[in-house]
């Protein structure tokens, strides 16, 4: 029974990881840029949730869309102000720019809110749902299900709509996309907006059950990197499968080996997987 409980907890957490990583993989796959500030986008969204709850006294129904919207704006802004210019440069300039951006965001928040850990009040989805002998925290259930829904929705949007086709067309071949009348700049800006919005929603959802601090993005972004590498760059179904798997692995190893070692297990399995399949589990060779 404990095993089922652990797997269920892991799947719920994994769904949030999947959404978090979908944003990263979208940007990564579309323009081969790794956003090292992605974890800081998540952190920013957590603080948006915190401020919205503390000062505006609103619930998740308001602060989740609010975080998504604000992060969307940030993503588009970052694209036009920064990414568009460094995209054609060497890979190092890209790493430098997004990492610098991450440091900038992280310490701006640090400056305003200090390094203290904060968290949302417990009454926010603080109940426990008991079904079939499983005990699931409402906050994690809400976060997991919403994340799962949005990840699948994002995948459908990319594969089933004209807008998604335009995005993928730019990813496939920029010049050819221009020839058929698609503006790559607009598409890439939207990809950054959507990618950041994914981080925004994931952050607002994680805030429901996780501590909030300026440096919280660091550990989350590493998990997201692993998820994206395992799933293959640009693959949302890959991110979903890898995210769920990592959630379950973390949950199991935290129980059987100890919480301090859960990330070690994830990283070790990741290295092993890369060694066996250098292009990711679902990536193209």
């Amino acid at each position: 029974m404990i095993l089922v409980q652990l797997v269920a907890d892991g799947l719920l957490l994994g769904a949030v990881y999947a959404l978090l990583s979908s944003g990263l993989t979208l940007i990564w796959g579309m323009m081969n840029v790794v956003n090292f500030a992605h974890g800081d986008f998540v952190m920013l969204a957590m603080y948006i949730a915190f401020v919205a709850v503390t000062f505006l006294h609103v619930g998740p129904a308001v602060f989740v869309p609010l975080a998504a919207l604000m992060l969307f704006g940030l993503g588009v802004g970052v694209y036009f102000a920064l990414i568009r210019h460094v995209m054609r440069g060497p890979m190092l300039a890209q790493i430098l720019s997004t990492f610098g951006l991450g440091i900038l965001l992280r310490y701006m928040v640090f400056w305003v809110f200090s390094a203290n850990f904060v968290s949302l009040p417990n009454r926010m989805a603080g109940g426990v749902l008991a079904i079939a002998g499983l005990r699931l925290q409402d906050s994690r259930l809400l976060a997991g299900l919403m994340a799962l829904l949005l990840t699948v929705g994002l995948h459908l949007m990319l594969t089933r709509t004209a807008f998604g086709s335009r995005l993928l067309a730019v990813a496939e071949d920029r010049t050819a996309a221009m020839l058929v009348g698609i503006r790559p700049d607009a598409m890439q800006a939207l990809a950054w907006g959507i990618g950041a919005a994914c981080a925004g929603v994931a952050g607002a959802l994680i805030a429901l059950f996780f501590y909030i601090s300026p440096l919280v993005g660091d550990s989350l972004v590493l998990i997201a990197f692993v998820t994206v590498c395992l799933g293959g760059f640009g693959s949302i179904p890959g991110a979903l499968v890898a995210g769920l798997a990592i959630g379950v692995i973390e949950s199991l190893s935290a129980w059987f080996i100890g919480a301090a070692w859960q990330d070690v297990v994830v990283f070790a399995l990741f290295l092993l997987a890369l060694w066996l399949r250098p292009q990711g589990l679902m990536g193209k060779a």
Partner: protein
Amino acid sequence: MKTRVPLVLLGLAALGLPFVLHEVYYQRVAALVVLAAISASAWNLVGGYAGQVSVGHAMFFGSGAYGALLAYTVLGWPPIAGAPFGIAAALLLAVVVGLPTFRLQGHYFSMATIAAAELIAIAVGNWKLVGGAAGLMGPAAPRSIADLSFRSPLPYYYIFLLVLTILLLITARIERSRLGFYLRAIRGGERAARSLGVPAVRTKLAALLVSAGFTALAGSLYAVMIGFVDPESGLGLLVSVQMVIIAALGGAGTLWGPLIGAATLIPLEETTNAFFGGSGTGATFVVYGAIIVLISRFLPGGIAELWQLVRSRRRLRAA
């Protein structure tokens, strides 16, 4: 021989710098600049010349730092005597981590190196024997000269300068050697290089071994000077990233780039620290982050690019 003149001047300036900077604070910053230049130059061999962007060099730096302080805490030796062990551990790590990850391309390689370094950092943080999360301390008071525990930053400055000079000489030598051409060929396109008979894996491993050894030495020197290391300061992600940022800022894959980067970034960090009153407020890193973003936005090839821009303009005008 004409080209040697600026070099000699630079060397003299470096040797004479402490006589101009009388204050201990500035001398300390100068020592830290040289130390950062050592690790960034070492990173540059793999990350710059070969274009294999490792974001896990903290594992080598940490090997050196932990090797030095473990020699003191476990064996009671002077910390610097632990440096060879630290370097040996780093070389071993380089082979163990390098061989499997060198098959990976581009971002995959970066991510694998991050994961490997992070794995080691967490493991060390949970391992009591090597200090766990609390870290290790060096000798509280110098027992003999061999402890290399000085109140003035000057001895450190000159030791670091000596190591940096050796490293830059080796790098310059590699630059002009067959190995240097191989490395740049690999950066240009690994498949093409292989097809022309470049032994890619062996070449990358050779560069990584030199790089890891010197990064570990930088770690040992750091531990000797600071007298303390914990998983965050020795093995943390920021340690790796700082090497990348310094080299990229100055100009990766150039001999002087890492030195320029260190001479820019470290004083900047210290000045903003002093200006905003300690690193406690976070304002320091806001400035730090903003400047990194601005440089990558306007000078994607690093500060060294500025020099090339000026030179090519001048050449155009002459023509």
